């Protein structure tokens, strides 16, 4: 078993009702896509935000990532809406 540090920002932080949580994942090769599938399996707002047509972004260890990006034990994985600063 490995542990990821999940973080949520902006609308997703509000929708999920939390700004961070630890997530246990199997100690096998694991990608961002696998993590997203785990979260979608929670149903409700998780499936709505991550499993539907809504666009979201993921960063692993504070670098922009794709669904193929590998995650490692202890990684910080952040999920957030497309950015709107400036």
């Amino acid at each position, binding site marked *: 078993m490995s542990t990821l540090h999940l973080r949520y*920002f*902006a609308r997703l932080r509000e929708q999920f009702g939390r700004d961070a949580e630890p997530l246990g994942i199997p100690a096998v090769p694991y990608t961002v896509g696998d993590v997203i599938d785990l979260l979608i399996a929670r149903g409700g707002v998780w499936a709505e935000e991550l499993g539907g047509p809504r666009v979201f972004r993921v*960063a692993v260890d*504070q670098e922009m990532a794709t669904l193929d990006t590998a995650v490692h034990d202890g990684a910080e994985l952040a999920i957030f*809406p497309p*950015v709107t600063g*400036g």
Partner: protein
Amino acid sequence: MMEAACGTPPRIRVAVQYEDFDPGVEEACLHDDDHRIGGCGCFVGRVRADNGDDPLLALTLEHYPGMTEKALTALAGQAVTRWQLLGVTLIHRIGRLQPGERIVLVLTASAHRQAALTACEFLIDALKTDAPFWKCEERRRSKQWVDAKTSDANARSRWGQHD
């Protein structure tokens, strides 16, 4: 001092802060008596009001502490390399900001005006799509996270591939 500055690497300053900034102070700081600099390009973004029947009261700016500073530093580095700048300052405010308040400062220093102004345009376009900030609009009858704009993605795509 000119002598001291000649061999120094480009100055990059990045800040994410609640406090306001002074574009004049920042320009003087970036110049820092480096006589190789022929000009500074600058963009100061402000909170704009809108005229709907439920007008904007304020924006609240959220960011991703750590990643935001890294993203801004990476953008500044890209601009320095691409346009051979002598310095870049990027300041972005967070928290609750009312119409008329300053949000963002982009400042570029270069030997020549064209490089400074082009890099400034690149940086504000790139910051809007690449740096983790999110705006929440507060109105009397609603509070809503702003959706990313296609026009911002298009403006960013003019500059080509991300590094």
